[in-house]
């Protein structure tokens, strides 16, 4: 990563650039900023210097924002791509969604812009691993399970299916859930509060928008069948859905609000986002990590830190952060193997996800998992929750009917 933090702004309106340049002048000591009125001049500047963040307008004469950011994605995959746009035309959404990490709607106030830029730099600082830094920002989507994606495609053609039905399918898939939450929480659609439930997200977007998105190249993608089999991805997905349900139950016993329970559910489902990235982008390394974990009886995340300098938990947290999901979800994913971090501020959604994940690993294991750690009882003692544990464990013990299904 370059030592000076560099941002490049592209907008065809000179007055907008002037306004930004003046506004951000006070950051001159910390940030180096370039301003360009068209895509080609920005691209040639990027060829000469490394930029950490590109902020582009959407509609521009000659080269539009989507085209520009797509070129940047391939030529400079490690740059963070933001779109600052006053445009609200629906046909552009899908394409824009697949090339930008986040959208900022024009007009945005200076504080919002500064927060977004600082946050983007902070995420970049967390991606210590050079190897990951080259791959993570270039990811357009998180691969979905082929079967789930196919089901969504079938459903959107079926006039009897509602957006709620489609949302339910999406909500059981890590890749599609993460993407739809990125989309619905972007400034394009701009709900004032973060939505953390794919079903609500689907209802909010409506079936027409979902259809347009699902058919836009790059919004959703699928894993090749060989990988699904090699890493037993369906087992991983089931694990995530169980962790989501258990995290929600745990939050319920702790009298958290309905909205927090909903967020906990999603945080649980997305906690292993990083594993999906490893499966899709670092499969060779992952196979070796799992092998070592079993042989040496050490948890995967320890070995990940040694081999790729970043654990799957941190990796997932970084992507979800890059995509602008809510803080609770990001924290839960990032710290689900660091119990001390999960109880820093007392009981939280991250605590619930840590516990749910640890309990699930205790009771259920799927084929391609590595060696798992025991639950850290000290954190339950700190929170005075030790007595609750058996009750939570019971949630996972399958009923007779379910046992039949598993067999």
């Amino acid at each position, binding site marked *: 990563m370059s030592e000076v933090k560099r941002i490049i702004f592209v907008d065809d*309106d000179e*007055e*907008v650039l*002037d*306004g*930004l340049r*003046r*506004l951000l*002048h*006070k950051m001159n000591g910390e940030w180096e900023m370039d301003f360009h009125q068209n895509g080609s001049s920005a691209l040639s500047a990027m060829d000469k210097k490394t930029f950490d963040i590109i902020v582009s307008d959407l*509609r*521009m*004469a000659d080269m539009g924002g989507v085209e520009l950011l797509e070129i940047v994605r391939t030529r400079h995959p490690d740059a963070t791509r933001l779109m600052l746009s*006053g*445009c*609200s*035309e629906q046909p552009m959404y899908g394409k824009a969604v697949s090339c930008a990490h986040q959208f900022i*709607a*024009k*007009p*945005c*106030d*200076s504080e919002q812009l500064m927060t977004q830029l600082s946050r983007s730099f902070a995420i970049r600082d967390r991606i210590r691993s050079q190897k990951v830094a080259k791959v993570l920002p270039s990811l357009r989507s998180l691969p979905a399970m082929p079967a789930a994606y196919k089901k969504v495609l079938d459903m959107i053609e079926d006039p009897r299916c509602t957006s709620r039905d489609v949302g339910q399918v999406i909500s059981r898939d890590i890749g599609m859930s993460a993407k739809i939450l990125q989309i619905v929480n972007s400034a394009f659609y701009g709900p004032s509060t973060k939505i953390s439930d794919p079903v609500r997200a689907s209802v909010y977007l409506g079936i027409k928008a979902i259809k347009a998105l699902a058919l836009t190249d790059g919004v959703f993608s699928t894993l090749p069948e060989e990988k699904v089999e090699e890493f037993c991805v369906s087992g991983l997905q089931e694990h995530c859905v169980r962790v989501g349900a258990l995290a929600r139950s745990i939050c319920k016993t702790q009298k958290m609000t309905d909205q927090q329970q909903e967020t906990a559910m999603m945080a649980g489902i997305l906690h292993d986002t990083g594993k999906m990235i490893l499966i899709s982008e670092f499969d060779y390394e992952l196979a070796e990590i799992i092998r070592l974990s079993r042989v040496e009886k050490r948890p995967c995340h320890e070995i990940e830190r040694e081999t790729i300098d970043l654990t799957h938990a941190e990796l997932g947290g970084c992507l979800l952060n890059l995509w602008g999901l809510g803080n609770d979800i990001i924290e839960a994913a990032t710290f689900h193997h660091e119990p001390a971090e999960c109880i820093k501020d007392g009981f939280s959604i991250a605590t619930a996800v840590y516990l749910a994940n640890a309990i699930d690993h205790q009771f259920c294991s799927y084929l391609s998992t590595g060696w798992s750690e025991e639950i850290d009882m000290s954190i339950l003692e700190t929170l005075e929750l030790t007595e609750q544990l058996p009750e939570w464990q019971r949630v996972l013990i399958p009923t007779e009917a379910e046992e039949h299904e598993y067999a």
Partner: protein
Amino acid sequence: METETLTDQSTEARRELERTQMLQNLGKLTAGIAHEINTPIQFIGDNLQFLSNGFEDILSLLCEYEKFRTEATEAAVSNDQHERVLAAKVKTDVDFIAKEIPKAIAQSIDGIKRVSSMISAMRDFSHIDERRFAPANLNKAIESTIVILRNEIKYVADVETNLDDNLPAVMCCIDEIQQVFLNLVINAAHSIGDCHEEGGDRGLIKISSRIEGDDAVFTISDSGKGISPEIREKIFEQFFTTKGPGKGTGQGLSIVQKAVTERHNGRLELESAEGVGTTFTVYIPIEGKTKNE
């Protein structure tokens, strides 16, 4: 009697359809209008924030100067005091602020004008259902049309206007004439846009007004792809469209023709060459329709 009722009903139904189409047209423009307002608001906001910060910095620098001045009158100034004032000046970045403040103010004022002109153009389009004949300034109607369509046009073409200042108020139904201009200019922009998409250069839309005999005459010409002779006969038919599904309703030109010839007793002329462009000329009697009145 019965035939009359039926005619009334069908006229009413046709008007209803025209109204719907008009609203649909305006609805499609709202995204572009929002964009045209959002952009100036963005830089006006940024400039104001900069001016506010800069003002604060300059005020505190002024305080330092004032302190320095009182100290200087009381006793000889020490090196320390001098250094302190100098540091304050460097921190404030006076040069940058002094250079940027006038531009920030000028651009913001310009931005406010952009927003105001858009809002006043929107106001011109909001009386879309009055449907009565009254004297109207049609040059202004053209200018409003261009403002409203700025976002549809600016990525593909430049607009050149040549409006006759002596054009008198024209007796017409302004909402219908506004709709005529809107449809013709949208078509011009789309025709150039199609060329542009196929890799063509940026185009030009020329709009002019003049007086010719008893008529007010308006020409709207584009450097777009032109209309082929085979379809020239059909373009005024209702529901005829060359635009892709979901893009055009095939009613734009049919409404234009009806409004000009039937409602205003005017004339509509078309000149077009493939690959060169199209010119529509609209003749409206200045005194209003004389026939059937």
